[in-house]
C-alpha cells in the first residue's frame, strides 16, 4: 500500500494533464489547438509577477479577500464535539467562491486577446460571477443555463441580465448543468477564433482542472494561515461540499501534504443513493469520459450519462473534477454524501445557531459536520468552507418546507 503513495499530493497533474488515470484532454480536434494554446499561456502567466499582482489586487479590492475565518460557537456547542470554524467565502463579492476563479480566467482571456466570453452555469452562481467580471472588464458575455435551472434560479438569471450578460436557456436533455456545458462547448467550437470559455468548476479538459484549482487555492492558503494564526495549529479536518469540486479542491489543495489534516468531501445524495435520484458521482458512479476529462461519472452500463439530482442546483452534475477522482483513489481525501433532507436540516441549523443563511451547496458540508463533529474531541478543529450564501436558495427552501411566499 505505502509503496503506491506519491511523495507529494500537490504535484499533479502530469505534463499531459493526468491526475493518475484521471483528467486528460478529451475534446474534438477543433478545440485541441486552443486547449494547447491555453496551457502554454497559463504556464507563462503563472511565471509572470504582473499577472499575479493583478489577480491579487482584484481579489483584495474587488472581491474582498481575504475572507474571514469564523469560529462558530453556538453550532460547536450544539454538536458537542470538535470546534467548528467556517471559511467565509460566502462573503465574497457575488456571494460565493466562484468569483475567485472568474477573476483568474478573465485575466487569462484578456492576456490571450480573446474578446468574447462564454460560460455554463447550474445554480447561476458561476454565471453571475462570470457576468460580473465581464462587466468589470467590458467584454460581452453569453451564459448557457439549463432551462430547468433558469426556472429554479430566476433571481440569478435576472442578476446576470442586469450585469449585461445574455442568458441562453438550454432545453436539450433534462435542461440542467450538463446540458448547459454541452451547449457551451458547441458555441466554443464554432467561435474558437475570438472566444474564451470560462469553465466554472475544476473539471473539463486540461489545463482547466489545474488552473481552476490554482485560482481557488486562495481559499486554502488563506485558511491555513488564518487557522495557524488563530489556533496555533493546523486543523484536524477540512470539510467541503462537492459538485464539480472547485471550492473543495481550493480548500484542500494547500493542505494535501500536511499528513495530520484529514479531509472530507461531501457529495449530494439527493433522495438517497439507493435510487437514481442523486448526484454522487464518486459514491454511485464509474470512471468514464465526459466534457473533456476522464473522471467518475453517473452512467449506465452502456456508458450513457445519467442525470444527477440534488435540491442544490449547484451540485446536480453527473461528474466530478478529476483531481477528486484521483484523491479518492489514493485515499488522501475521504468522500461522503448528504441527502436533500439532511442538507435542508443543516441549512436551518446554521440559520438558527449562527445567524448565517448558507447556500444549499455548503449545507451539504454542514450536514456531514453534524455527524462527524460529535465523534471528535473538543480540542479538535474542523474547518468547513462556507462557499456560498443562501439568498438565492430561499425560494427552493420555502418550497421544500411547504411554505408559501
Amino acid at each position, binding site marked *: 500500500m505505502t509503496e503506491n503513495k506519491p511523495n507529494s499530493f500537490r504535484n499533479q497533474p502530469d505534463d*499531459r494533464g493526468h491526475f493518475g488515470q484521471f483528467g*486528460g*484532454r*478529451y*475534446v*474534438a*480536434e*477543433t*478545440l*485541441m*489547438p*486552443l486547449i*494547447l494554446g491555453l496551457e502554454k499561456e497559463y504556464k507563462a502567466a503563472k511565471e509572470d509577477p504582473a499577472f499575479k499582482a493583478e489577480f491579487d489586487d482584484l481579489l483584495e479590492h474587488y472581491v474582498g479577500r481575504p475572507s474571514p475565518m469564523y469560529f462558530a460557537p453556538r453550532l460547536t456547542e450544539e454538536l458537542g464535539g470538535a470546534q467548528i470554524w467556517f471559511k467565509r467565502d460566502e462573503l465574497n463579492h457575488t456571494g460565493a467562491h466562484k468569483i475567485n476563479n472568474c477573476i483568474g480566467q478573465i485575466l487569462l482571456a484578456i492576456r490571450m486577446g480573446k474578446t468574447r466570453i462564454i460560460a455554463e452555469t447550474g445554480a447561476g452562481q458561476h454565471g453571475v460571477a462570470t457576468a460580473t467580471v465581464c462587466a468589470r472588464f467590458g467584454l460581452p458575455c453569453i451564459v448557457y443555463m439549463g432551462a430547468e435551472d433558469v426556472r429554479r434560479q430566476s433571481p440569478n438569471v435576472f442578476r446576470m441580465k442586469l450585469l449585461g450578460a445574455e442568458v441562453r436557456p438550454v432545453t*436539450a*436533455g433534462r435542461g440542467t448543468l*450538463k446540458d448547459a*456545458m*454541452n451547449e457551451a*462547448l*458547441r458555441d466554443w*467550437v*464554432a467561435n*474558437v*477564433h475570438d472566444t474564451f470559455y470560462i469553465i466554472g468548476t475544476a473539471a473539463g479538459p486540461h489545463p482547466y482542472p489545474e488552473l481552476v484549482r490554482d485560482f481557488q487555492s486562495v481559499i486554502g492558503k488563506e485558511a491555513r494561515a488564518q487557522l495557524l494564526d488563530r489556533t496555533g495549529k493546523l486543523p484536524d479536518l477540512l470539510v467541503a461540499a462537492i459538485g464539480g469540486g472547485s471550492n473543495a479542491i481550493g480548500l484542500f489543495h494547500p493542505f494535501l501534504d500536511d499528513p495530520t489534516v484529514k479531509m472530507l468531501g461531501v457529495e449530494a445524495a439527493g433522495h438517497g443513493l439507493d435510487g437514481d435520484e442523486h448526484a454522487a458521482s464518486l459514491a454511485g458512479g*464509474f470512471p*468514464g*469520459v*465526459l*466534457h*473533456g476529462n*476522464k473522471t467518475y*461519472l453517473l*452512467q449506465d*452500463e*452502456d*456508458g*450513457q*450519462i445519467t442525470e444527477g439530482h440534488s435540491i442544490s442546483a449547484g451540485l446536480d452534475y453527473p461528474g466530478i473534477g478529476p483531481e477528486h477522482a484521483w484523491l479518492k483513489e489514493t485515499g488522501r481525501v475521504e468522500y461522503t454524501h448528504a441527502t436533500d433532507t439532511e442538507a435542508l436540516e443543516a441549512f436551518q441549523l446554521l440559520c438558527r445557531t449562527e445567524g448565517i443563511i448558507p447556500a444549499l451547496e455548503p449545507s451539504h458540508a454542514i450536514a456531514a459536520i453534524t455527524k462527524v463533529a460529535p465523534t471528535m474531541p473538543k480540542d479538535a478543529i474542523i474547518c468547513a468552507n462556507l462557499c456560498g450564501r443562501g439568498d438565492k436558495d430561499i425560494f427552493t427552501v420555502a418550497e421544500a418546507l411547504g411554505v408559501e411566499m
Partner: protein
Amino acid sequence: MTRFSDTFSRGPALVCFITAGDGDTAANLDALVEGGADVIELGMPFTDPMADGPAIQNANIRSLGKGTRTADVLQMATDFRARHPDVPLVLMGYANPMIRRGPEWFADAADRAGIDGVICVDLAPEEDEDLGPALRDKGIAPIRLATPTTDDARLPTVLDKSAGFLYYVSVAGITGKQQAAVDTIEANVARIKQHTDLPIAVGFGVRTPEQAEAIAKVADGVVVGSALVEIVAEHGEKAPEHLRALVEKLANAVHSAR
C-alpha cells in the same frame, strides 16, 4: 487491400452517416448503399453529443429514447456486414460508450461485427492509448479528424497511427451548420496531402449534389450526415425511398468527379 483502400482507389467516394437506432436502420442503410454510398458511417448514439448540431443531437435522443443499446448497434453492424460484404463500415461516436467495458471489449466486439474503422470524436490523439492500441490489434482503423484549426505543426500528431482515411472537418463548428468555401477546402486538403498518403474525406455542412461535386474535385471523399439524418426524422418509416433518391444524386455528383 482493405475495404477502404479498395473503395478509395476507385476515385472520390461518397461517405454517408446515419445514427443507429433512429428509424429503421437496416432499411435506411440498405437505401444508402443502393443509392450509391461508398462508405457507411454508423453513428453510435450518446446522451451528450457535444460536437453535433441539432439534427444529429435529436437523432441521438430519438434513438436512445427508443431504448437503443450498444448491443443493438453492434447487431445492426453485424447484419449490415452480412448483407454487404464489401462496403466499408465505420462506427462513429463519442469515447464514453466505446470505452465503458474496456477498449479490448469494444475492439473485439467491433471486429466481430465486421467494422473497418472507428471515429471517436472526443478522443484526442494525445489520449490514443484509451482505444487506439486495442483497435489496431484487431486491424480496425482509428480514423482521425483534422480541422481548420489543425495547423502544420500539429498535423503529424493527428496523423500518427491514424488509418483508413482522414476526416477533414471543413468548418470550425458543429455538424450540420454552415459549409466552408471550396477554395478554402482545396487549400487545406492540399496542405494535409503534404503530410499523408491517406485518402482525405471532407465533411460538415455538405447538403447538396452541387456542394458534393465541388468537394469531390479537390478531395478523395465527401461526407454527408445531417442532411440524411433530417430525412430520417422527417419521413420515419418512409425514409428509405427518400434517402435513396438524395444519395443517388449525391453519388452521381461525387462519382462524376472520377
